[in-house]
C-alpha cells in the first residue's frame, strides 16, 4: 500500500474534563475518497478540526507525507495542503460573494498585503466556479448574508475546490443541499477523485451518498474508531450497522413502519 498523504496516530482531544477523541488513527490516501462516519457527537468534526489546525490535539501525532507535523494555526494546515469546508460554514455574511470567495487568497498586483486587488478578474472567477457546481448567482457583489443556506454551502465548496488542496475535507457538505445540488457536490467529489492527486475526506450521515462515492470508510463512536476498511472489504449491512453507531438499522426501520 502506498504511503498515506496524511496519517493521524493515536489522536486524543480533551475539552476540560470531557474526552472528545480517545486515541483515533486515520490514514488518508491521495486519489481516494475517505468517508468518515458516525453518530452525532462521535467526534467527527473534532477530528477534522484537529487535522486542519483549528484544535491542537491533547496527545498523538499528525504525519504529513510521513513527516510528523504540528499545526499551530489553520494557515499552517492550508500551507500543508489541507483545505476544509466546515460544517458551520466559514462564510462572512456582510461581504460580497467575490470577497468571500477570495478571502485570504486575493488576486493582487503589488506587494503582498498592500497589493491592489484585481476585482474584475476575481468577480469572473467566482461566478464561473460557482456555475461549475450548478449555482448561477446573478451578481457577485451581492452580500452573502442575503443568500440561502444551500447557496452558501456551494460557495464554500467551490472555494475549497478552486484553491485545490491536496486533502479536501468536507464536513457534511450535502446536509443542507437540495437533491440537484447534492448530486452536483457528489459529482464534484468524483471529479476531484479522478484527478488522482487529491485525497477527499467526506463526512456524512447519508448512507447512499457515502456508498456512491467513498473508497474507504472509518466509523467513529464516542470518540473511538469502531471499524474501518476499504469499500470492498466491508459488507453492506455491516456499514449500515456501524453508521448507526452499532445499532441494527433494520430494526429501526421496522419500528418506524409499525407506528
Amino acid at each position, binding site marked *: 500500500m502506498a504511503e498515506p498523504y496524511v496519517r493521524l496516530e493515536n489522536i486524543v482531544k480533551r475539552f476540560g474534563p470531557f474526552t472528545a477523541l480517545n486515541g483515533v488513527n486515520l490514514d488518508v490516501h491521495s486519489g481516494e475518497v475517505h468517508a468518515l462516519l458516525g453518530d452525532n457527537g462521535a467526534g467527527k468534526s473534532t477530528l477534522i478540526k484537529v487535522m486542519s489546525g483549528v484544535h491542537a490535539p491533547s496527545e498523538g501525532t499528525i504525519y504529513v507525507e510521513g513527516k510528523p507535523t504540528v499545526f499551530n494555526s489553520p494557515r499552517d494546515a492550508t500551507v500543508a495542503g489541507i483545505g476544509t469546508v*466546515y460544517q458551520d460554514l*466559514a462564510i462572512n455574511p456582510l461581504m460580497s460573494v467575490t470577497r468571500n470567495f*477570495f478571502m*485570504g487568497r*486575493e488576486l*493582487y498586483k503589488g506587494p503582498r498585503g498592500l497589493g491592489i486587488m484585481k476585482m474584475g478578474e476575481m468577480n469572473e472567477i467566482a461566478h464561473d466556479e460557482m456555475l461549475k457546481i450548478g449555482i448561477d*448567482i446573478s*451578481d457577485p457583489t451581492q452580500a452573502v448574508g442575503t443568500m440561502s443556506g444551500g447557496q452558501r454551502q456551494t460557495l464554500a465548496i467551490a472555494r475549497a475546490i478552486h484553491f485545490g488542496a491536496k486533502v479536501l475535507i468536507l464536513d457534511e457538505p450535502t446536509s443542507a443541499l437540495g437533491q440537484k445540488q447534492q448530486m452536483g457536490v457528489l459529482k464534484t467529489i468524483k471529479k476531484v477523485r479522478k484527478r488522482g492527486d487529491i485525497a477527499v475526506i467526506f463526512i456524512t450521515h447519508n448512507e447512499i451518498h457515502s456508498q456512491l462515492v467513498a473508497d474507504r470508510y472509518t466509523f467513529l463512536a464516542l470518540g473511538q474508531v469502531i471499524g474501518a476498511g476499504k469499500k470492498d472489504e466491508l459488507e453492506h449491512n455491516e456499514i449500515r450497522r456501524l453508521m448507526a453507531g452499532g445499532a441494527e438499522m433494520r430494526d429501526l426501520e421496522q419500528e418506524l413502519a409499525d407506528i
Partner: protein
Amino acid sequence: MSDRNESDRLQQESTFQRLIRRPEAGSFAVMVVVLVLIAFASNGNAMNALGIKNNLSIISQFGIIATGAALLMIAGEFDLSIGSMIGFAGMSMAMMLKWGLPFGLGEATPFSAFFITLAMTLSLGWLIGTIVVRSGLSSFIVSLGFLFGLRGVTEVTFRLINQSTQISGLQDFKETSFFARLFGGESFGWFYDLAFALGFNLNRRGEQWVTGLDARVVWWMLVVLIAYIILSRTQIGNWIYATGDNKESARANGVPVNRVKVGLFMTTALCATIFAACQVFDTNTADAAKGNLKELEAIAIAVVGGILMTGGFGSVIGVAFGAVTFGLVANAVFYIPWIDGSFYRVFVGAVLLAAVFANERIRKRITGGI
C-alpha cells in the same frame, strides 16, 4: 414555470437608487443638513475666512482619530484608550522637549521627540492588540483598562518629573525646525493669499486676515486617502472586512486575523500620536487632560460616518463626512449668538442619534436587512 430564472427575482435599479444605497449616503445627508443649518444660523460667520480655517482645524482633529477608530471598528474591535494615548503622546513629546531625552541622551529635537514617542505609542498599541488577540478578551474592556492606566501614567509622570500637570513656554520650534512645521505649521497659504488678492479675507482692521489652514488639515486628508485606498482596494482591506465580519471564518481561510487586529491597534495609536504632535507643535504646550473623552468622540464619529458597531461594514469616506458633521456641531454653536454655549452637548447627542438612524436605513437596504 421551471424556466423562470434566478435573476428574474431581482429588480433592476436606477443610478439614483444605486447612489442612495452607497454606505456613505446616510452620513452625507446628515452632513449637508447640519452644514446648511449652521451656515444660516451663524449669518455666514461659520463659513468666512477664519470660520473655515477654525472649523477645518477641529474637523481634521476629529477626522484623524476617527479614521483610525473606524478601521479598527470595521475589524470588529474597539479602542477606548485613544484619548489617553493622545495625552500620553503629548506628555511624552513635550517632556522630552523640555527636559531632554531619557537616560541623559541629551537635548531633544522635534524629530527625535516625535519618533521616540511614536516608538512608544506603537509599542503600546501593539501591546493592547496582542493582549486582545491572545486572551480573546473583549477589546472594550482591555482598552478600558488602558484608558485608566495610561491616563494615570501620564499624570504621574507629569507630577513626578515636571511638578506640574502642564508644560508651557517651550520655545517655538516652528521657527527653527521644518519637522515641527510639518505638524504645527500652516498649509494652503496660497489659497488665502489668493483670496486676499481678490479682496476677500480681510479682518476687522482691513489687513489680510488668515494666512493659511492648519497643517493638520493636510494630515487628515492624507490619513483619509491612505485609509481609503487600503480599505477598498488592497488585500489588507479585504482582510479587515473579513476579520470584522466573521473572525473564525476569516482565520480558517488563512486571513492573518491576529496580525490585522494588532496592526489596527497600532494604527489607532499612530493616529493618536499624529493628533498629539499637531497640537504640541502648534501650541508648544501639553497638559495631562489632553485627549480626554476623545475615544468616545472618535467612536461616535465613526458611527455617524456609517461604521457598523459590530464590525464588517463601513466606509472611510463616510467617516470623513461624519468628522465634518461632528466638528461643525462641536464648534459651530459658538458662532450662533442666540444659543447658549452649554447647548452643545445636547446637539452632539441629537446629531449622533439622527445620523445613526439614517445610516441604519441605508445599511439595511444594502445588506438585505441582516
